[in-house]
């Protein structure tokens, strides 16, 4: 009984801490007053900050650029991260394995200023030596994002693969499938949920990143966090609340929808494996 009280209050306090700030942004996004935190009861709620947001070309342009960079990052990071996870989980010991596993876990905790600085200095050195990449652009931002996002994908894929033994893959080999075919027909479908969540995570990490982008972005490639950050340094402005509300709404819908879809996928797989078992 006392245990239930303790766990109940821990969850209540914890979730209040997590969600009160978000709720306050949502509420104040409908506030008429320019003073972000003083509620103007007479003229609120209002949608004027949403209007201001959608007529702000700079924010819209930066948001579109961020979406493009994030989608590109996620797609490349998923390919590289899946390969790295597969190698680490399935290829056994090989020369240089320790270095590879070190290089995939270090980015998880590396302070962003260090990653940002080192990536920028690399790009400058490469430009001097090879003439590529030319200046800082969306391309350099994407390369930098891929490098730290793929570490997360690797960990997800690796732990998913560690959960399965290789008996299914072995069976497919025994039936005469070539390694590449085994990968595409057996391994890949098994780790598809991990790849999907890896893609989403990589997208979010890239979409959210400020520090690394600030180092490696060029004059014409300001991402959304960079634009918001420079706005925030000039002082708070209520249209940022409106932006936050829209983002929270999209994320909430996406996460709920995604988890429902995942659950359906899992149910279907269970049913299929039961059917397969009853056929035997």
């Amino acid at each position, binding site marked *: 009984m006392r245990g239930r009280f*303790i*766990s*109940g209050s*821990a*969850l209540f*306090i*914890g*979730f209040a*801490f*997590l969600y009160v*700030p*978000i709720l*306050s942004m949502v509420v104040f996004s409908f506030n008429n007053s320019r003073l*972000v*935190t*003083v509620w103007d009861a007479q003229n609120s709620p209002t949608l004027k900050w949403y209007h201001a947001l959608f007529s702000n070309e700079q924010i819209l342009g930066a948001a579109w650029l961020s979406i493009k960079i994030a989608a590109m990052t996620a797609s490349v990071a998923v390919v590289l*991260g899946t*390969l*790295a996870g*597969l190698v*680490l*989980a399935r290829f*056994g010991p090989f020369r240089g394995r320790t270095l590879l*596993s070190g*290089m*995939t876990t*270090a*980015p*998880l*905790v*590396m*302070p962003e*200023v*260090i990653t940002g*600085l*080192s*990536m920028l200095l*690399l790009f*400058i050195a490469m430009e001097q030596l090879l003439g590529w990449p030319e200046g800082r652009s969306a391309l350099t931002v994407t*390369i930098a994002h*891929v490098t730290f996002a793929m570490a997360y994908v690797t960990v997800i894929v690796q*732990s998913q693969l*560690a*959960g399965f033994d290789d008996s299914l893959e072995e069976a497919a*080999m025994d*039936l005469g499938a070539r*390694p590449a075919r085994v990968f595409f027909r057996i391994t890949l479908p098994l780790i598809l949920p991990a790849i999907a969540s890896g893609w989403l995570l990589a997208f979010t990490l890239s*979409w959210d990143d*400020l*520090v690394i982008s600030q180092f490696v972005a060029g004059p014409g490639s300001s991402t959304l*966090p960079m634009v*918001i950050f420079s706005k*925030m340094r000039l002082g708070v402005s209520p249209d*940022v609340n409106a*932006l*936050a509300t829209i*983002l929270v709404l999209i*994320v909430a819908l996406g*996460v*709920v929808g995604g988890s429902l879809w995942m659950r359906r996928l899992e149910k279907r797989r269970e049913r299929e494996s039961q059917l397969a078992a009853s056929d035997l």
Partner: protein
Amino acid sequence: MSEDRHYPALSARLASGRLGPLLTLLFRLAPPRWSEYVLTHWTGKKFVIAIPYLWLLLFFLVPFLIVFKISFSETRIAMPPYAPLLEWAGHQVVAIRLNLGNYAFLLTDDLYVSSYLYSVKVAAISAFLCLLIGYPMAWAIARSTPAWRGIFLMLVILPFWTSFLLRVYAWIGLLKSNGVINNVLMAIGVIDAPITMMQTDFAVYIGIVYSYLPFMILPLYANLEKHDQTLLEAAADLGARPLTIFLRVTLPLSMPGIVAGVLLVFIPAVGEYVIPSLLGRTDQLMIGRILADEFFSNRDWPVASAVAIFMLVLLMLPIMVFQRIQNRELEAQR
């Protein structure tokens, strides 16, 4: 020699015959274990390893070597603003200049030493506060029914998917002198004048704890969820009180989760740049801010590189501990 595993005697006899080479080839085509085959024969294997390997070497390891190199150069007013390490000194002599001045500068200037110490202090206190809030939550989630578990975990992760910057921004609105917290406290008469909360250590702790909380809860939950319930029952049957069970069984068992969670918060928090810039003090900067200022405002690349290398050396031990735990977790799942 995987083909010999299946039919050793037969394959040996056939291989010694006239058609030996051909038959050996055929046996090679016959299916051995998948993982063994991939390890020993598949030519694509090296290629598959090479792709992520080369990417990480080029974009993760080489950059550190460049930072390391530049940290030993002298500052110059040029583009790039540092002197090369190798220089033709004329008469077929290559001069290598290793300038240790940047490091000496770091260690003697009070600004750098104090901001290093301050960063470590802020990160340690934040990680501890995170543990204080995160542990009970992870414990409660692990104890709840499976259906609720999914919902609770989703609620923990959901703020993480929304923008980090906007979540820090939300706290500005709450903590300001005319912010929500002060307004509410004054309205109900707890305080008469607003408390200064912005640009204090307190605000930085709040910001870091708030942003990094999921990183604390998730490894703790992953650990607590795996605990063997029969151990707890056995302890209870032997007469242990709930608090004793927690302190003697649950807490020691969850140590790897605690260490992983604390490191996941502590290491990146040492170099945190955004949160202290927006919420923190202006008279005492954290080292991440110093690095960015050296680079962007002072354009002193060598000193910025030396700051980065120094930070990396400082964090090397915690990073290695984290990697060990991470690897053990991944191996243990097998």
